[in-house]
């Protein structure tokens, strides 16, 4: 009697007469699936918790009185399961459930976007009756209602499987939609009150009545993808095509550094939709709305199709042939090289292959280290940090590590806004694996709240001090496997990156640097930095240069050995007229630390070559504009923040050329063989390159600055980008922009009191250059800190204020402060409005 049944981790059961071993706790439907037995289902999704909502997966289990739902039933030892393949009971039950589900489902498959790829359609054919016995009138609702500007809900089609609500709650944490009402009136809908802090639209567009909270989740597109019927559809793809007409290509997302796997569907030379790809190691099956819907920039009207050169006579850009434009570019660059050198600004949107082409072109053809990919506020400290702690694959933290880490400290990064898929993984880890997140940030943002982060209150500029001294941060990082996740924004906080490197070394925490753009990490490794050659080789290291020289087929002495200018240095030198020319990739001057100076630099530089997809502030000032291919028209590789390579093939074959091919053509005219003409050649060259033996430079040791002193109505500016903002890759996606978070100026209680403003009142943030006026949101911020979205409608911080995070700004209540007030009689909008009213009254 002492023999106790041994606890085992596996059980043995029989499904359809086949004995199978399964892990304890596994669901019957999964085990059957592994065996190749397909049980029909709607609500079941491998990444969502079991719900048993649709009842379609009924199977017969021996010993059970009634058929059971296999998506909620866990396996047990000795269980005998019979699916519809061997059991008449199960088959009849499934047919019955299907008849129930179709009793209220409208027969509008011909107009439904899901038609052709619809699980309900398919399984009604495979597991349903040919004819319904229900002849009653079907349930009717108002056909589609906008639950956000992008997502449409057709409640007639809904079978109440709750995949969308479960995704929103479990995965995204945005519980904007839920089951409403009861019985036959039960439906999915948005909340009709302002419980979740929504501003209420009241324009009749959203939901049924006023005061509805729109489904403005950054991940709302996933609900459309997992909806097993056509109840949720997207405005952008609505009625555009049929699935059987589309050609699908696996691709990678070009927006942020999360590295999502995607699927692009096109027909007749136009990408019509993009879906999240299935990659368990990276994005699982999800992506964000920006990646899903932000692809229309490539077909915008201002796309440059032919090379442009500046006409000597008229001074205007005119279309030119490729040969003429290339010769002009080569001659101009040659002259500029002699006249003071050429600075290369590549931007953070390049593939690894194209970034490598720029890096090689700068060194070999232009003989300079004046190259930088960073199109944002930056510091020399950051370049040193990247050389010591990021380049060449040192930080090898992966999504799996994030999921399994016991603790993570996040500095200079708002994961939901700046790396949404990292956010989803953090949230999964926090909910399922008890990951403890510590946020070193000015306030607990919505994203941080959703991952249950503990806040270490930090004013911008204070990060270095907090990281060096705060006990909570050091304690959090003490656990083995703890992660220190660092955002690119730390570059604008002096000493912070030095403190990060020191903290990681001290606590043994693993370091992950998460930039914002898809090409950033790849550009570091490809050598688009003034202090780094490809593979993380320091330019100052003669041995490293000697390693690279044979691979590039040049004499070791040819490669310049002194660190070049960074973006700010290049801009300053060009503005002062010291540089002979600029070679600019996809850079928007508005993203740089000082947009006005950047535009001045483009004006003052002797010769500007721009490689662009669309017209921009750079192309307007360029001497030669060479059109290049957007991501969907070329193949390449993005490197995500993990350092993982995300290769993608061409989605649309066109004649558009990659940056690498254009640079090769220019180099050929400069009598240099670049060998970057096609992607495979570059990959071979990169693959054949010997691993770097150069010693790694030491981490930077910059001392932290003190917080600046501020007057009563002055504050330190904290700022970061919203995910969906005014970036140029979201141009043309107006319905997507409708789901953006509202632009607000966040102020603390202290500032609200001293300014005398309440929630929602207009507050103006200004500097000597200009001001930004937005409605106030009173937030728990450190004293005298103000937060603005960096580049959202009504708030282009760098362009309007000319400053970035950590700077001191002035605050005033009301629309425009005294600095911005226009002189009387200048016909301001307010005056005009007043005049109009007067006119109407008289």
């Amino acid at each position, binding site marked *: 009697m002492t023999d106790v049944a041994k606890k085992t981790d596996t059980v043995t059961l029989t499904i359809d007469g086949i004995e199978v071993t399964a892990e304890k706790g596994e669901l019957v439907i999964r085990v059957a699936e592994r065996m190749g037995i397909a049980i029909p289902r709607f609500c079941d999704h491998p990444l969502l918790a079991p719900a048993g909502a649709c009842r379609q997966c009924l199977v017969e289990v021996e010993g059970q009185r009634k058929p059971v739902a296999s998506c909620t039933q866990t396996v047990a030892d000795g269980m005998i399961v019979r699916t519809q393949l061997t059991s008449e009971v199960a088959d009849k039950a499934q047919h019955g459930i299907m008849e129930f589900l179709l009793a209220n489902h409208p027969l509008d498959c011909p107009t439904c976007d899901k038609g052709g790829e619809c699980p309900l359609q398919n399984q009604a054919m495979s597991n349903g009756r040919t004819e319904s016995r229900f002849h009653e009138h079907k349930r009717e609702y108002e056909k589609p209602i906008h639950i956000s500007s992008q997502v449409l809900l057709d409640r007639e089609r809904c079978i109440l499987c709750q995949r969308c609500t479960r995704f929103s709650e479990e995965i995204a944490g945005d519980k904007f939609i839920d089951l409403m009402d009861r019985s036959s009136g039960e439906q999915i809908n948005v909340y009709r009150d302002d419980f979740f802090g929504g501003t209420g639209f009241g324009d009749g567009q959203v939901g049924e009545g006023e005061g509805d909270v729109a489904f403005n989740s950054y991940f709302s597109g996933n609900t459309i993808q997992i909806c097993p019927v056509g109840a949720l559809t997207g405005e952008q793809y609505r009625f555009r095509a049929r699935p*059987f*007409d589309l050609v699908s290509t696996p691709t990678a997302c070009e927006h942020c550094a999360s590295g999502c796997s995607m699927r692009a569907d096109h027909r007749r030379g136009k990408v019509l939709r993009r879906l999240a790809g299935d990659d368990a190691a990276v994005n699982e099956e999800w992506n964000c709305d920006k990646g899903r819907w932000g692809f229309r920039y490539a077909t915008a009207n201002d796309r440059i199709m032919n090379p442009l050169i500046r006409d000597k006579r008229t001074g205007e850009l005119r279309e030119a042939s490729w040969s003429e434009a290339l010769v002009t570019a080569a001659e101009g660059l040659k002259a500029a090289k002699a006249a003071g050198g050429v600075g290369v600004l590549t931007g953070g949107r390049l593939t690894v292959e194209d970034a490598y082409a720029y890096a090689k072109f700068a060194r070999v053809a232009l003989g300079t280290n004046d190259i930088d990919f960073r199109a944002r506020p930056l510091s020399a400290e950051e370049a040193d940090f990247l050389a010591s702690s990021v380049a060449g694959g040192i930080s090898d933290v992966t999504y799996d590590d994030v999921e399994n880490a016991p603790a993570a400290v996040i500095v200079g990064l708002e994961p939901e806004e700046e790396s949404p898929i990292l956010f989803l993984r953090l949230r999964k880890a926090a909910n399922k694996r008890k990951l403890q997140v510590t946020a070193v940030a000015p306030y607990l943002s919505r994203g941080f709240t959703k991952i249950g982060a503990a806040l270490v209150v930090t004013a911008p500029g204070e990060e270095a001090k907090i990281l060096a001294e705060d006990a909570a941060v050091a304690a959090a990082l003490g656990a083995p496997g703890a992660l220190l996740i660092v955002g690119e924004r730390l570059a604008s906080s002096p000493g912070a990156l030095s403190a990060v490197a020191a903290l990681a070394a001290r606590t043994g925490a693993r370091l992950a640097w998460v930039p914002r753009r898809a090409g950033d990490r790849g550009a570091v490794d490809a050598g688009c930095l003034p202090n780094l050659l490809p593979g993380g080789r320091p330019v100052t290291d003669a041995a490293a240069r000697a390693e690279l020289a044979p691979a590039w087929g040049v004499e070791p002495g040819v490669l310049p050995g002194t660190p070049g200018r960074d973006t700010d240095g290049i801009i300053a030198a060009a503005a002062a007229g010291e540089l002979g020319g600029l070679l600019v990739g996809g850079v928007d001057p508005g993203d740089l630390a000082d947009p006005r100076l950047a535009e001045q630099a483009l004006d003052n530089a002797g010769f500007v070559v721009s490689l662009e997809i669309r017209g921009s502030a750079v192309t307007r000032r360029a001497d030669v504009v060479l059109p290049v291919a957007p991501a969907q028209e070329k193949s390449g590789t993005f490197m995500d923040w993990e350092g993982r390579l995300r290769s993608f093939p061409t989605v649309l074959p066109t004649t558009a050329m990659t940056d690498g091919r254009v640079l090769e053509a220019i180099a050929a005219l400069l009598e240099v063989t670049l060998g970057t003409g096609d992607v495979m050649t570059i990959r071979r060259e990169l693959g054949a390159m010997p691993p770097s033996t150069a010693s790694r430079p030491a981490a930077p040791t910059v001392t932290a600055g003190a917080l600046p002193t501020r007057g009563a109505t002055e504050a330190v500016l904290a700022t970061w980008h919203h995910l969906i903002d005014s970036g140029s890759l979201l141009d043309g996606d107006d319905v997507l922009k409708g789901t953006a978070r509202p632009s607000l100026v966040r102020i603390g209680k202290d500032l609200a009191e001293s300014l005398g403003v309440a929630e929602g009142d207009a507050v103006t943030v200004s500097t000597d250059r200009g001001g930004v006026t937005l409605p106030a949101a009173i937030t728990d911020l450190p004293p005298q800190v103000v937060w603005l979205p960096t580049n959202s409608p009504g708030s282009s911080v760098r362009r309007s204020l000319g400053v970035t995070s950590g700077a001191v700004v002035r605050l005033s209540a009301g629309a425009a402060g005294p600095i911005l007030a226009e002189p009387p009689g200048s016909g301001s909008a307010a005056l005009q409005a007043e005049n109009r009213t007067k006119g109407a009254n008289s």
Partner: protein
Amino acid sequence: MGTFTGSFKGFGVTFAHMFRKVITTDYPFSPPKPAPRYHGRHILNRHPDGLEKCIGCELCAWACPADAIYVEGGDNTDEQRFSPGERYASIYQINYARCIFCGLCIEACPTRSLTMSNEYELARDSRQDLIFTKKELLAPLLPGMEQPPHPMRLGETDKDYYIGALTNPGTSKGAERAPWSESGTHDAADQPGDRPETAGTSRRGDAHDQPKETVR
């Protein structure tokens, strides 16, 4: 002797045929009338108020074994309504260089929008002209019909258009057969179309009918 009787025999056959029914046709002056269910060119029918029956579902394109049909859907709005319901065909093309007149498309059509007429005179002298667009395919407006876009005249919702349509086939009366398929030689494509046509092209049927209109 044999030659003589042989000639009689031969002429006998000839003369006998003089009194038989002629099997040649006086085409194109009096074209033969095909069987009622002959698979001729397609028509996109209209509802009695002139709204298009086509909802742009692309099922015809899906059914087409020759890949001859191209459809692009579009959104109906209250300001711009072409068909009852949410969806209409913003582009509808049938390429008669590919069409094999099998009729699978009309079987697939869920709204009985696409039907086939008896019109068989489809020869054109350029491939471009063989791609028929909505302009050519849509049934002509009969009395009482109104050129879309216009609001729904026959009911509040699209359901009002479909419920009753089966029991009352009169709602699509006149749209199933285009008038020109009766007269035979007249070609609807002679009406100003939206396809560019070159001035030099002439069609049999045009030559003795009326001077060719040059479009655009």
